[in-house]
């Protein structure tokens, strides 16, 4: 008994906190360990994270009946889908005193008018990353989609270009280059975009959603169509390895796709109280800055700016100036019929 008592006393706080747990379903590597520890200390609760690597994966898991999550961090189009499904509960603004920190440019988004359900957390842009040293040597432009679509530019780049293995993202780039909106669903415009892609495809090495980070940093690939935060990582990896070249990335002047990831609260959240506390904690400038410092994400939080490393904060491809922002578009979900048509075009693109 003498020995048992201290053991029980040690266990007591564990039992108490086990019930005070916030369950987060979030992108891999999206909250730093230090931020998580600070939150746990501040609220006296535990933070448990499950990860997904794709919005579709998250939606599919929820559709298949995954429960027990308090907070999710989907991209805009997935937020809209979840709202229409009735899978979310409204956020209680009175419990979010730091909401004022959100940049007005990111308030009232198309996917959630008035931010009734969502609080923006981080942003990224789909753009072109490149081996700056090599492109200067070849005298090629870096600020246009022509770099991956025009055979004239592609000849010296043959086998050194990767594009995203995503029909929506690649079509968006082609549509913007052709002067259309990334949201365009006119089949004639889609066909023109497909033909543009087919003309350029022989010069590309492969379709890649993640390996381009490594390939850019190793120097295997000279131009990659991909996400801004991945380019930050490729640049850091190349620097850390002391490579004799520099990685750069630029938003093409024709415009590109912007992704805004937001906190939303599951309708069946076991602990909406903790979820609100977490969102408000993450809205405070220093905590909000971590996602930019850690993974090079853009930040919709005004109070975070002073705490962001200059290397990230001064990067116009991560924090686009107002004039560039007007040329960025968020993707919206297609209806099932459009999805099927796009899928067949995508197969044609892959096979021909």
């Amino acid at each position, binding site marked *: 008994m003498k020995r048992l008592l201290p053991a029980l006393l040690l266990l007591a706080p564990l039992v108490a906190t086990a019930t005070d747990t916030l369950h987060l379903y979030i992108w891999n590597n999206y909250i730093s360990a230090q931020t998580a520890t600070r939150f746990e200390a501040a609220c006296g609760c535990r933070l448990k994270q499950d990860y997904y690597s*794709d919005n*579709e*994966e998250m*939606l*599919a898991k929820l*559709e298949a009946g995954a429960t027990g999550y308090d907070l999710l961090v989907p991209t805009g189009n997935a937020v809209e*889908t979840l709202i*229409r*499904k009735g899978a979310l509960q409204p956020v209680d603004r009175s419990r979010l005193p730091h909401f004022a920190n959100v940049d007005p440019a990111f308030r009232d988004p198309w996917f959630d008018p008035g931010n009734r359900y969502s609080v923006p957390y981080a942003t990224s842009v789909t753009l072109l990353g490149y081996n700056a040293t090599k492109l200067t040597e070849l005298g090629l432009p870096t600020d246009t989609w022509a770099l991956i679509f025009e055979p004239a530019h592609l000849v010296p780049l043959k*086998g050194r270009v990767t594009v995203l*293995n*995503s*029909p929506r993202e690649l079509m968006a780039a082609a549509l913007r280059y052709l002067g259309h909106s990334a949201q365009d669903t006119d089949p004639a415009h889609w066909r023109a975009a497909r033909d543009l892609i087919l003309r350029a*495809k*022989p010069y*590309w*090495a*492969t*379709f890649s959603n993640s*390996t381009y980070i490594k*390939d850019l940093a*190793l120097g*295997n690939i000279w131009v990659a169509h991909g996400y801004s935060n991945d380019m930050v990582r490729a640049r850091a990896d190349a620097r850390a390895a002391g490579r004799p070249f520099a990685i750069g990335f630029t938003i093409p002047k024709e415009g590109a796709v912007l992704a805004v990831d937001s906190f939303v609260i599951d309708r069946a959240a076991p602990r909406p109280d903790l979820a609100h506390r977490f969102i408000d904690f993450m809205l405070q400038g220093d905590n909000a800055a971590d996602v930019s410092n850690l993974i090079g994400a853009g930040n919709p939080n005004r109070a975070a700016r002073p705490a962001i490393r200059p290397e990230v904060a001064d990067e116009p491809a991560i924090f686009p100036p107002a004039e560039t922002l007007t040329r960025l578009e968020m993707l919206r979900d297609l*209806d*099932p019929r459009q*999805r*099927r048509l*796009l*899928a*067949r075009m*995508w*197969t*044609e693109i*892959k*096979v*021909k």
Partner: protein
Amino acid sequence: MRGSSSTAERGARLTRWLVTAPPALFLVVFFLVPALIMAAASFREPGEFGGLAPLASTGLTLEAYRFVFDDVIYLEVLVRSFAVAALTTVICLLLAYPLALLIVRSPKRQRDRLVLLVILPFASNFLIRIYAWMMILGPLELLYTPFAVIAGMVYVHLPFMILPLYTNLEKHDPVLLEAAQDLGAGAWTRFRRVTWPLSLPGVLSGAALVFIPVLGMFAVPELLGGTGDLLIGNLIKEQFLDNRDWPLGAALSLLLTAAVLAVAWLSALLTRGRSAS
């Protein structure tokens, strides 16, 4: 007396049931039921958020099949996948046969060690081994080519060809080869007339173990392949995970399942023909 014999009979029947029921149950639960669900899904409309549209509002439809057969592109991908699977199987056979023979003909103690070496790659994760291939092929300028896809496919499936060949060749009676030699058969004739015909069941089961998984494999072409290396496995994966079009994915899956069953049936027919003759 009658009573005891019927008890023994009942015991035998019970044993037979106990032995066959678990695998039968396994097949029903993990093959038949999913296949039926898949078949049913292929006749539905895709839901707005993925999944399937409510049956009450859209009913059953042949739309997914019409869409598949509307364009030769999907059959083209299927034919191409069969070609990749056939090529992989032939290369695996050419590499595995001499190796299996070598293992069988080495001394007993070495034999176990060699078999262990064949199985050893399974000790590390499949994706890690494919990433290792990316590092090998990258500097050789062979990454993201059809060659890389075939190399990866052969590498992953080679043990599945070696092991059935080894188990088969190990059972051959060496006396048969000696008899052939005594009758004047040279090394080539001994192989062609004795070893090869006896090993055919091993060749066929190895071929099935390689051919069928290659048909459905999507990770290898996705990681090692270039811009044109799309196989039916990738296409099905895309419909479910990226495109949220379950009916189209289900229709393509059934097409693949039908093709695989046809190959398995053909292989079984060939084996039976051999053993009968």
